[in-house]
């Protein structure tokens, strides 16, 4: 059946710079914000924007991600006629291989898109934290009668050379794409979010697939080719919170941002819900001697110690006399008594023995603790 717009959500990234966090997990599946996984923000954006036809392209360690997305129920994407579809690289009889690039990932799934005969394709990725109404982006694309529209965000001038910069006319028409320019002419960075007219994109994908020297990447190949051919391309300026949580440091920062009240990123908004799975854990239990300040705490937690500037996922025990500061505690972690945890990320299921001290302030970036490296911290003794 025909759909006006199909979204293709790229969720295959390995997220290598996230170290231990993505050792056995695709980046979009990494826990975030006390209850969510990173991809929940993008899927919730789809749901809230009434984009109901979503192909999710997974490849790296897809097991948990596939399970998380499942039939799409939390995002109201469990639909008879469209909804969310997981598109893994197909294994043919003679073997299969990973997608060669972002454009190749879409190219390999042309049959999926064609069945909906769409006017527009929305290309998004599951790596970023932001709340965005894609309907407005698509509306902008239509108004400008654009062939391709790229969502951009203003970045500080001094950081602009770290991004793909779009140089535009006053009416936002794009005339140049500068990948990480040394001397940027502009501070509008591409967010990696594109709307294309499907007919046009389809043609470019077919051509690009035949090029042996192409990286089959949107930023490196498709967009430059389209610009070169003089297609109508416009920028759409997004205003709001947007963060690529690509490193341990930025992952930790994004969490600290979440504790800031005056950022526009809000989990509490009734207008823009962020959806994820909910569990049947009972309400959190706060003990007689607990102290909690400036923190987010999820269901099933049992707090008897001190928690400050931290984010606790579900079913976490914090023992008496333990103190947690500027840390992120993934689900099902047990922190026994007399522990001190500072600027650390404790991974799912870890048990922290009594008296352990983990102080991330002594290191360049926050410490990531799993059930293997926890032994390194056990014997440091108690000094508070």
């Amino acid at each position, binding site marked *: 059946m025909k759909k006006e717009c199909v979204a293709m959500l790229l969720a295959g990234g390995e997220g290598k710079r996230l170290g231990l966090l993505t050792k056995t997990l695709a980046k979009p599946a990494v826990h975030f914000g006390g209850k969510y996984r990173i991809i929940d923000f993008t899927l919730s954006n789809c749901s809230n924007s009434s984009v109901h036809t979503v192909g999710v392209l997974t490849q790296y360690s897809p097991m948990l991600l596939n399970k998380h997305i499942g039939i799409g129920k939390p995002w109201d994407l469990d639909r008879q006629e469209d909804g969310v579809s997981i598109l893994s690289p197909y294994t043919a009889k003679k073997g299969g291989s990973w997608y060669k690039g972002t454009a190749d990932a879409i190219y390999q799934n042309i049959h999926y898109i064609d069945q909906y005969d769409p006017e527009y394709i929305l290309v998004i990725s599951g790596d970023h934290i932001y709340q965005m109404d894609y309907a407005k982006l698509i509306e902008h694309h239509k108004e400008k009668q654009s062939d391709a529209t790229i969502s951009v965000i203003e970045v500080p001038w001094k950081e602009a050379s770290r991004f793909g910069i779009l140089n535009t006319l006053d009416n936002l028409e794009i005339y140049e794409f500068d990948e990480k320019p040394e001397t940027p002419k502009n501070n509008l960075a591409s967010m990696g979010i594109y709307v294309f007219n499907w007919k046009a994109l389809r043609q470019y994908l077919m051509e690009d697939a035949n090029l042996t020297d192409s990286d089959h990447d949107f930023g490196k190949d498709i967009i430059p080719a389209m610009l070169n051919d003089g297609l109508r391309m416009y920028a759409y300026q997004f205003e709001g919170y947007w963060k690529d949580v690509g490193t341990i440091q930025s992952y930790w920062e994004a969490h600290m941002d979440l504790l800031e*009240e005056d950022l526009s990123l809000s989990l*509490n908004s009734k207008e823009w819900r*962020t959806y994820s799975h909910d569990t*049947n854990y*009972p*309400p959190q239990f706060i003990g007689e001697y*607990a102290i909690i300040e*400036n923190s*987010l705490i999820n*269901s099933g937690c049992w707090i008897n110690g001190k928690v400050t500037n931290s984010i606790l996922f579900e079913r976490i025990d914090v023992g008496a006399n333990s103190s947690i500061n500027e840390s992120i505690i993934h689900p099902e972690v047990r922190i026994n008594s007399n522990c001190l945890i500072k600027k650390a990320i404790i991974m799912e299921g870890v048990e922290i023995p009594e008296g352990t001290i983990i102080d991330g302030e002594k290191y360049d970036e926050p410490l990531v603790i799993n059930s293997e490296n926890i032994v390194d911290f056990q014997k440091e003794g108690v000094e508070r």
Partner: protein
Amino acid sequence: MGDLMGLINLEHEQDFLEELTYFRCGAAAPFAGRYRLVDFTLSNMVNSGVSEVAIFTNSKYRSLMDHLGTGADWELARRHGGLFILPPDWNDPTDVSRGDLKHFHNNRDYFHRSKASHVVISGSQFISNAHYKKAFKLHLEREADVTCITTEVDTLEPEHMSQLRIEHDNDGWVTGFTNDHENKHVFTNAYIIKKEVLLKLLDECIAYHKDHFFLGGVKENLDSLAVQYINSEGCSIFINSIKSFYKHNMNLLQPDNYRSLFFKNEFIRTKISNEPPAKYRESSKVTTSMLANGCVIDGEVSGSILFRGVKVHKGTKVKNSIVMQRCIIEEGVHLENVILDKDVRITAGQTFIGSKDKPFVVAKRQTI
């Protein structure tokens, strides 16, 4: 356990929670920070492998329907079997049945269409986290017509007074149902019954103009029926008044009770929400309390239970209170021994204090 179907009978449980049941039936009353009373019976059924459950509702069932929805959150949104909420809607002028028999009679279809040959029946006022599996096993082994779930209490409390007590012989056969005020062996109103026995008693009850299936059908025919009992394990709570409602909420703030109701068995299922984790701001001070997700706390909370999405503003103290969904408590308020129903807003600077025996109750959607 495919052989056991479920029935939650609310006909004789009406309006027992005063202000809290002005606009909803008791089964839909919020409890323990994120649940409704009905969640416990329903979860125990589902966690015991029961895959079809009917609910006989009488009036004020709208919020119950809203809460249960399609039944998906209890794994009951099934194409075959599932959840059947059965409000009173019958139009047969020749129907002479009365009381809960009217429900049984008009919903015979539910019993006939199922392949199950036994039915577990319960109300919503007994709160526990226990399987019916053991009881069903005993029921089958003993070839009982009826197996009553009971509990032996250490101390009789006011909420036990209205419950039937059981007398039994050494083989576990029930010999009498009494109202003996000294008897500590209390019937929970939950029982398993053979479907064919149910249908037979149903006809008898209607023929003799009875208006209560258990009293008129099972209790009065005790001589001719084989009735076993089995004690429910773990946490056993009866809620049939505002006083017992308040008391048992507060009791959950003792760690042992919290653990026993929530972590001793499978989880109690309830309606899934999309609330973010609870937010504790700089000035928050929270001790000995249960909080659900979506709360935002700036003030002081102690000895209290806060449901989803409650906001406690700066300089406010909430003590020994139950605050239901989405209440907003503005700045400089002092609450003690108070129950706020959903969507109440307490405007700045006010003080409300009740007592443990007579908590101050505010009905829903008021601004005071």
